[in-house]
């Protein structure tokens, strides 16, 4: 084998930088899932009766469902009774300032390079940090509330804004939606809730860092974002998790609702523990994300950079109900070692002149498998609907795989649907060419990969784009030379 190929494999074999475990006492529920556990979760969170009922309805429905098997990933069967569904840091007091937060937690954030401190505030980012299942710090809330913006944890929203939660929770992803979303509906622990009132433009990027910490604790986030008529919000979600031997299940649900002329931009950088070089451990990331463009001229953009998790199963989609509404999906998915990703989007065109754009960039290294799966459905009433899809795959080395499954369902003859796909490979010829011009191999790979992802990075907010580039470098970094 040539040294270039070996180098690429070394790059792909770099160790996960963010693996460590924070030592704080947790308040755990016993392992297993039954009605009592769900009632316990609901009680721990002081939820009203209607919420408990909703959870139980979901649980009963879940019992009738089967785990999906159509996706292009394989993993040992999950024992849902062997998972702990609730875990919260012991000290549950709400903090007013960072000084009150346990130093251990702050240290964890520091290690992750998350500047929760003053820099972040000065940078204009309000942070709602979810540490395991309970929010430990929320900032900038007051400034936002002056504008009528609600940015809080889902638990708080259930208690403080029950009418909004009742109206919108499950309205985009119903509790009957799919196996993992239904499970989430029954046992979700926390997440973010955002409400932007009519004609308000949220003045800063809202962001949440998720982190799975306690061993064997399934993380079931539930996020709901509502943009009223003419409102705008940009939301960033980024996450890392510590090294674990056993697989951790993550089944999040995100629902977005955009009314007339509203715009929601949702950006994700996902870097959960992908498992070690032999494919042991790592997060199972089974996520349901969906946005509803309910109003006319509304717009929802999903941008994701997925580098982590042993398995990623995720199709952020848009339901384009309102006339002239726009859905966008920009994705970079990087897999290496034994990682598996089956990701893509769903664009459902229902309204007239609805438009969607899909740009997917898959990067496979090591022995990983990277699948793009996308659905574009043009309903019979979607006069003049248009879609453009571009799905590119980049292979590093010769043991990885890239797959593309585009599904097109067009029921209106006036619609225009375009699909482009390419597959390319970083070859030793390319690396040598760059070497010969004075660029070392690691930089050469980064140059190629970043160039390839540029279209997607351009969609990320500035600071996130920098972080994403760094993340790709770290994911590909190794013992070069």
């Amino acid at each position: 084998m040539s040294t270039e190929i070996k180098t690429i494999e070394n790059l792909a074999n770099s160790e996960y930088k963010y693996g460590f475990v924070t030592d704080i006492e947790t308040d755990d529920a016993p392992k297993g899932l039954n009605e009592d556990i769900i009632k316990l979760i609901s009680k721990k969170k002081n939820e009203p009766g209607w919420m408990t009922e909703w959870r139980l309805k979901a649980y009963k429905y879940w019992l009738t469902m089967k785990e999906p098997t159509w996706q292009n990933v394989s993993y040992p069967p999950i024992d849902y009774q062997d998972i702990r569904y609730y875990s919260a840091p012991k000290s549950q007091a709400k903090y007013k300032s960072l000084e009150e937060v346990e130093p251990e937690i702050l240290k964890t954030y520091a290690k992750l390079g998350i500047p929760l401190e003053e820099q972040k505030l000065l940078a204009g980012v309000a942070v709602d940090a979810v540490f395991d299942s309970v929010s430990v710090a929320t900032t900038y809330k007051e400034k936002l509330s002056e504008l009528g913006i609600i940015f809080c944890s889902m638990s708080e929203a259930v208690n403080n804004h029950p009418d909004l939660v009742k109206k919108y929770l499950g309205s985009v992803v119903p509790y009957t939606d799919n196996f993992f979303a239904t499970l989430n509906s029954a046992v979700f622990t926390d997440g973010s809730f955002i409400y932007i009132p009519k004609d308000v433009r949220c003045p800063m990027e809202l962001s949440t860092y998720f982190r799975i910490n306690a061993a064997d604790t399934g993380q079931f986030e539930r996020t709901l974002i509502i943009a009223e008529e003419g409102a705008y919000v940009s939301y960033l979600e980024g996450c890392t998790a510590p090294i674990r031997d056993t697989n951790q299940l993550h089944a999040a649900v995100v629902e977005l609702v955009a009314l007339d002329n509203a715009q929601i931009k949702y950006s994700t950088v996902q870097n959960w523990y992908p498992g070690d070089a032999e494919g042991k451990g790592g997060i199972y990331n089974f996520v349901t994300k969906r946005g509803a463009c309910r109003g006319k001229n509304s717009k929802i953009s999903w941008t994701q950079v997925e580098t982590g998790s042993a398995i990623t199963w995720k199709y952020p989609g848009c339901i384009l109900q309102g006339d002239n509404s726009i859905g966008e999906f920009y994705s970079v998915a990087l897999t290496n070692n034994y990682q598996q990703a089956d990701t893509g989007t769903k664009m459902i065109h229902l309204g007239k002149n609805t438009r969607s754009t899909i740009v997917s960039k898959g990067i496979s290294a090591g022995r990983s498998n990277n699948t793009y799966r996308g659905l574009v459905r043009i309903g019979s009433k979607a006069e003049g609907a248009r879609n453009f899809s571009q799905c590119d795959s980049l292979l590093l080395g010769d043991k990885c795989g890239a797959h593309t499954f585009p599904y097109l369902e067009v029921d209106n003859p006036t619609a225009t649907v375009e699909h482009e796909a390419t597959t390319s490979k970083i070859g030793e010829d390319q690396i040598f060419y760059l070497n010969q011009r004075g660029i070392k191999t690691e930089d050469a790979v980064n140059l190629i990969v970043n160039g390839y992802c540029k279209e997607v990075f351009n969609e990320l907010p500035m600071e996130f784009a920098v972080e994403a580039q760094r993340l790709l470098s770290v994911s590909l970094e190794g013992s070069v030379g």
Partner: protein
Amino acid sequence: MLSVKNLYVNVEDKEILRGINLEVRAGEIHAIMGPNGSGKSTLANVLAGRDGYEVTSGEVIFEGKNLLELKPEERAHEGIFLAFQYPVEIPGISNATFLKTAVNEIRKHKGLEELDAMEFLLLIKEKMKQVNLDESLISRPVNQGFSGGEKKKNEIFQLAVLDPKLAILDETDSGLDIDALKIVANGVNIFKQQNPDKAVIVVTHYQRLLDYIVPDFVNVLVKGKIVKSGGKELALELEEKGYDWVKDDETVSEKV
């Protein structure tokens, strides 16, 4: 500048170079000529440090340094440039980004300040003119969708921008029409004229490139050995008599 001594190289366990000796002094232009399969491109690639070539014995000294111990990028930093026979396409990276990275890597190595966007732009504008490179190519992905002639011009453009000490042209004339050939040769001559200490190794099958890049020495490579060396007139003699002439020579010398 470059001293190759008794160099033996295997490719996939097959002996391709069999005792090459070559001295290139500052300011010299050397032509390496030879029939197909004689090892010309192997020599060019070994000098640039390409993987897959196993040096079994001999040494290569460049500016007092043991070249064979250096990685390809380190050789580039030291001032070795290879114009590729088949320039590689790199989707996603613009020619400009690629070249700016390369220029600054080399400058960093020399202890010079990195060029900022403006300085770089001025530099490439000047060099683009020298090789008649269409300005639109600079923002396109490296070599992607370039014609054969554009790719070769792009190589010479990079040569002009990176300004190495030793330029190795590996069959740069192949696939070029006469106009492109003249432009490419002109680019090389400008590179040479701007600093008389630069050296050039021209690897070619045909004599016609040497009408435009006039060599000081012509070395004829046959079956992995330099069987004949001489001045520029040797190229013309070869053109006239064909490689069989020197091949016979070699057979004779082997028999003796």
